[in-house]
């Protein structure tokens, strides 16, 4: 009795030894709930967004592979518009005094095999088409187009402009590619006549290609390095083709290369590797290295690899985006991206990652060595997708024909 009373009286003041302390659950503050909901919504939106991207990318890839495999309705016509029309024009009329017409050309009239041969070899010399002699500089498309594409393109060109009814099969292109191997470009109209045994009338003779003779010192600079300095070729490739973020040098104008080397040396263009490499080059060595790379006619190793929208890239390169004051790339860098020395380098066949990274560098203020800040202004108007699109498109183009580029580019007299 007593014990019970005692215990009963004390139970309010002395917790039972079995008592477990606990805390009352506080309510979760509503802002935390709001944050959780907000993050949840955000996550959902991101998932939604990504799903769209994946669908778009799949559609793009399907379209691209269809173009590759010739499954579109008229692959030759589309290829012509994308690869030929900047020079030969959409109507195949060429440009007076500069680009031979395809329409009415006796070469095209020979049929798709000669068209395919010229496409794969390219031309580097004077050629007469009807009444006019052209200073022919046509790139080799061998490294830029597949057998299927060359088959479709040569068929389209020969049928549309040469009155041919023949279709040129992919197997024939493959055989032709093997036969041509690396025999180089035609040296002009006369060379085409001689090699094919066909008569194209009075064709001008091509000039012999001037081979650059490298001094042992400069050859060492390019291929083995000097002392602590590594060789140009160790990053830019044996033939200056470039790779990923390292630019292609083959076919760039010598004046442009020299200017960039000078800019690396004096800090107008920032790149630690290049600053170190250039530090001990004399002016003469810079010029010789530049001349060597300018004279190289090397197949393209660049490919669209950034997932850019090629149609958008083509539009930017050919027509620009005037709503943002972005002129066409080709309005300054030349109608086929072959460059205009010394301020406007060739863009064709440049490594996509390099082009995109330079555009980003200009936009972000890390590269500042273009005249009038032209490239800075333009790059800032392009968003990331545009930069990838245009870089990918340019990487899909055939490499610039080298040769007389330097001589012609230097004719502009400067006071």
């Amino acid at each position: 009795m007593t014990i019970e009373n005692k215990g009963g009286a004390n139970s309010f003041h002395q917790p039972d030894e079995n008592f477990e302390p606990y805390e009352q659950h506080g309510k979760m503050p509503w802002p935390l709930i709001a944050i959780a909901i907000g993050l949840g919504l955000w996550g959902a939106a991101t998932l939604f967004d990504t799903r769209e991207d994946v669908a778009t990318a799949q559609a793009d890839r399907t379209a691209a592979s269809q173009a590759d495999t010739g499954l579109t309705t008229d692959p030759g016509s589309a290829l012509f518009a994308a690869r030929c029309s900047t020079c030969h024009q959409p109507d195949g009329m060429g440009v007076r005094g500069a680009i031979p017409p395809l329409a009415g050309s006796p070469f095209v009239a020979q049929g798709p095999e000669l068209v395919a041969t010229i496409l794969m070899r390219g031309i580097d010399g004077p050629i007469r088409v009807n009444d006019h002699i052209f200073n022919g500089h046509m790139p080799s498309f061998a490294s830029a187009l597949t057998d299927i594409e060359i088959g479709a393109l040569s068929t389209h060109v020969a049928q549309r402009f040469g009155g041919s009814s023949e279709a040129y099969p992919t197997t024939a292109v493959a055989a032709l590619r093997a036969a041509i191997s690396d025999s180089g470009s035609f040296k002009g109209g006369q060379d085409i006549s001689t090699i094919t045994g066909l008569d194209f009338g009075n064709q001008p003779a091509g000039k012999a290609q001037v081979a650059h003779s490298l001094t042992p010192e400069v050859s060492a600079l390019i291929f083995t390095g000097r002392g602590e300095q590594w060789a140009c070729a160790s990053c830019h490739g044996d033939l200056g083709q470039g790779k990923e973020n390292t630019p292609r040098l083959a076919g760039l104008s010598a004046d442009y290369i020299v200017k960039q080397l000078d800019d690396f040396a004096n800090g107008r263009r920032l790149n630690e590797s290049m600053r170190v490499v250039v530090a001990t080059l004399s002016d003469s060595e810079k010029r010789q290295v530049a001349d060597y790379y300018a004279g190289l006619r090397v197949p393209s190793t660049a490919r669209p690899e950034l997932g850019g929208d090629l149609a958008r890239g083509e539009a930017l390169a050919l027509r620009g985006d005037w709503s943002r004051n972005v002129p066409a790339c080709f309005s300054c860098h030349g109608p086929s991206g072959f460059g205009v020395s010394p301020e406007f380098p060739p863009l064709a066949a440049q490594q996509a990652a390099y082009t995109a990274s330079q555009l980003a560098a200009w936009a972000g203020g890390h590269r500042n060595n273009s005249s009038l800040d032209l490239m800075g202004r333009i790059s800032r108007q392009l968003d990331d997708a545009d930069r990838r699109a245009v870089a990918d498109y340019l990487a899909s183009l055939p490499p610039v024909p080298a040769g007389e580029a330097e001589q012609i580019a230097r004719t502009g007299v400067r006071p």
Partner: protein
Amino acid sequence: MTEPKEAPEAKPADINKGLLTRWWIHAAGAVLIAVAVGALAYESGFVPNRETVQSASQTTADGFFQPPSDDQIPNDEFGAAVRRGQAIFTNTSTNASQYVGNGLSCSNCHLGAGRQPFSAPMWAAWVQYPKYRSKNKQINTMEDRVKGCFSYSMNAQHSIKGGPPPAGDDIYRDLQTYMYWLATGAPTNEAIKGVGFGKVAKTELGYSPERGAEVFAANCAVCHGGDGQGQKDINGRYVFPPLWGENSYNWGAGMARIDTAAAFIKHNMPLSQPGRLTDQEAWDVAAYIDSFERPKDPRQKGKTIEETRKQYHEGDQIYYGQTVNGVLLGVGTPDPERPVGAGD
């Protein structure tokens, strides 16, 4: 014996303590919600972006008329004529080869293939004709106007045919079809923003070729060359057009007038950086460019330069018939040995 220290009195809870933190948490929550809702709205297309605005309206954000884009050219006979006209417009020396005596194309001055506002866009020109022009003191149809372009800007006197295309030529039809198509939906009989090259206000200093030489070297030479003769690519194709000399427009062209050139330059040059030059710089560099000799005015015929100046250039801001640096301008560059573009 010391008194036991009193335990420090528990302070009453500060009711303001933590308020700031809570405020921040609230704010962060609100921002996150706003971002999430905003992102959802953007992704779902409720927020207008650049593309949707442009396709939804016939005018740009700046209030300029928006011509149709190339992929809207119809695939029929009309569309074929539009494409032919566009080909002539952008590649004039090839597609109107017989009538072009220099290295220019229509699109060298009418930028964006005739689309760019204040670059004498074709959509604005089309709805202005027929109109009276003091240049020849009569009502001009569009064909008359284009004929003038060939005569002066394209320097047809040095072409194979030696003059502009004859009246009714298909070149005029195709070019006009292209213009008509560019003006699809453009308002008529009202002022249209972006017409012509615009105007540049006169400056106190007037214009000076000497000052213009410096402007030219700093802003123009990189593209047009220090000698103003433009630059070509490896195939000999003009990438940047020549501004004076035998391959440029002749003394009868509108661009040979300093006020016209200044307006074009102010609104369009350097390419991609319109407005970079001040009004004064635009006037000066226009004066510099138009102070060099170029092909003669084809209207001179048997007349003297002074007679031609009085008849056709009186009151114009042009160096025609004036002596600059001791040289009488308007004599014209030498005639070519054979017509420009003739066969080899």
